[in-house]
């Protein structure tokens, strides 16, 4: 750490000094002088570890013997890893779509109403809570206490989880929400949606406000209103923003780790790739398998990042 900072300061100092000294350097040299340290650090901190991880994924558990694609074959054929991949797929499909949808509908509904600021704050607040914090909150929401047979009321444990208390008030049995697959994964997904909907709402609300008034006016004169206004004017106008929101949330969802680790530890068939990667690498000390899972995650995220970057660039061109 300290060596890295020292290196950074020394290199930047040298660059600044050189640029300062030689006034008559050609502009490409100045640009190169500033770019080189960045390129060097990207190579050292990003590219080289990536290559090293890819290399490690073809080796055995302590990185000593070459095993070819064995780790990948195992990841795609062994039952427990298939569950992990299936869960990750479900997360990446459900979270961005639902979070964006909720954010969009909410943004439209509160747009230009009297209590807009307050309503937005409510939805945006979860964004400020860390994933671990949110997971702990939601674990309490799902907390389970049994209804015991033949036990007098004064010895019955009180429900301390909101969801189960609601069920009990409705006259239903309390449930172990986090225990039975595949539904428990969806109860975890709710936490991520709760966090991300605020982000979607904020970005989309800004985009909606940027729709030129004359377009809305013209559409209204043409007789559009309500759902059709939403379908034919609002959504097409904010399409670039929608794409950015969906892809950004998808990227965040792919690497979700904190929620799963905090709430179930990956037990009860809820593990996802990032959590399994940590377990394999650090708990079970299977470096090869961990690296293979990291590479799978890496490969999955590339198309989303590429699409996101392209959309951002296109959006800028329009402006």
């Amino acid at each position, binding site marked *: 750490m300290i060596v890295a900072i020292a290196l950074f300061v*020394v290199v930047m100092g040298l660059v600044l000094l050189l640029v300062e000294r030689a006034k008559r350097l050609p502009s490409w040299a100045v640009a190169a002088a500033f770019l080189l340290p960045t390129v060097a650090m990207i190579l050292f901190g990003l590219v080289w570890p990536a290559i090293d991880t890819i290399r490690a994924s073809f080796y055995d558990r302590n990185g000593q013997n070459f095993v070819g694609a064995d780790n990948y074959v195992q990841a795609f054929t062994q039952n427990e890893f298939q569950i992990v991949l299936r869960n990750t797929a479900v997360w990446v499909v459900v979270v961005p779509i639902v979070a964006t949808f909720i954010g969009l509908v909410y943004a439209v509904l509160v747009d230009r109403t009297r209590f807009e600021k307050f309503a937005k704050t409510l939805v945006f607040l979860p964004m400020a809570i860390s994933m671990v914090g949110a997971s702990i909150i939601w674990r309490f929401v799902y907390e389970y206490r049994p209804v015991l047979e033949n036990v007098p009321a004064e010895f019955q444990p009180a429900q301390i989880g909101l969801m189960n208390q609601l069920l009990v008030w409705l006259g239903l049995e309390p449930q172990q929400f986090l225990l039975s697959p595949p539904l428990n994964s969806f109860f975890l997904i709710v936490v991520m949606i709760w966090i991300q909907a605020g982000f979607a709402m904020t970005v989309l609300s800004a985009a909606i406000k940027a729709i030129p008034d004359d377009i809305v006016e013209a559409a209204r004169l043409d007789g559009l209103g309500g759902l059709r206004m939403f379908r034919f004017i609002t959504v097409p106008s904010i399409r670039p923003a929608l794409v950015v929101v969906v892809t950004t949330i998808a990227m965040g969802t792919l690497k979700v780790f904190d929620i799963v680790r905090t709430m179930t530890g990956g037990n009860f068939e809820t593990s996802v790739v990032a959590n399994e990667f940590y*377990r394999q690498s650090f708990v079970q000390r299977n470096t090869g398998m961990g690296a293979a899972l990291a590479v799978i995650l890496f490969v999955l995220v590339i198309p989303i990042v590429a699409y996101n970057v392209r959309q951002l660039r296109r959006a800028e061109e329009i402006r």
Partner: protein
Amino acid sequence: MNRITRRRGTALVASVAGLGLLITACSGGDTPGDDDTAAGGDTDCAAFEQYGDLSGTTVSVYTSIVAPEDQPHIDSYKPFEECTGATVAYEGSKEFEAQLLVRLEAGNPPDIAYIPQPGLLQTIVGDFPDAVAPVSEAAEANVDEFYAASWKGYGTVDGTFYGAPLGANVKSFVWYSPAVFEENGYEVPTTWDELIALSDQIVADHSAEGKKPWCAGIGSGDATGWPATDWLEDLVLRTAGGDVYDQWINHEIPFNDPQIADALGEVGSILKNDEYVNGGLGDVSSIASTTFQDGGLPILTNGLCFMHRQASFYAANWPEGTDVSSDGDVFAFYLPGPDADTRPLLGGGEFVAAFADRPEVAAFQAYLTSPEWSNAKAIATPSGGWVSANSGLDPANLTSEIDQLSAELLADTEQEFRFDASDLMPAAVGAGAFWTEMTAWIANDKSDDAVLDSIEAAWP
């Protein structure tokens, strides 16, 4: 223009100089604080003369033992620090198992680490052969003198002795309330059949009140499932015996051998029996969502269960002020064997590995294996919950009755002692599939065969 240039230059020099200060502050810091001079003077230093003068040296210790259990450890180093002049820097972490490997990988190991699993020690020796120093001569001599040979075996990898035993615990215990047992006229069972008969008796007597004979919890964060592995290990020892147990650990028989399946079936007859569990906590699946710390509490809080199988260290989980003794609020009895004469014992412990071969590190390792340390540690732990297999430990120094019973069982040579199997198996099984599959066995009612087959498939 010129002035601006000069100012920039000065700022640059200042920032570089400041960074230099930062670097020196970080690398050269940590001067030992001598705040224990007041306590000195009354320690008998004769036993410490062999270590020589170690003034000005520091030994760093890295462990998984965190507050509140760390203070007795820190206190137990006082005699060593006072008599030799060395300083012991203690660092505990809940992420110890993963972080130790990360530190080894980064070439930044502690001087001493307390490793709770022999399997982890094997992994470390296998993956970082040059990092671990063999146990120092003085320490090895102590271990030969004061410990049963099997303890040296657990710390030995490929014929080299790397990990000196430190603390120990007894796992084959069933916690119960002596007062409640007496009230109901129940006797502490001495055979497995008597234990089952007692469970049935409790069902017959109390199921109408919603009470169950057993309560259990296997939740433990990242390590959820380990209490269930202890159950299976205890039962393998009882239904198949120590020889099969050893073959099982060494993978000389497959994990899904019929003899292991029998033992798992026996565990299931208690843990997956709706009539037996889970007193005060719900149905069978609630075992998976209850933490092991909370698992036994209904015995005391509302009397909805009568028995809880958990290790000696569970003593620390009872609420403050609980009388843990044979005629008090709670106590533990030995989990019975097949008959009163066959009494296998399951236990665990920590091992001291050194990652530096400096004289002060060797001396400290030797101190930890000596009777002086064991007794100092026992005295430094007034509330109990600690015991060691060191034969030089004076039982009179153990304050709690459960620790005395544990020490007695550990010292009993009639007892067939076996170390926790999951701690001896490779990490992929011992800290992986064994935990997660036993959790699925309870939480999702996965079948016995499917569980054992999955664990066998995960064996590296």
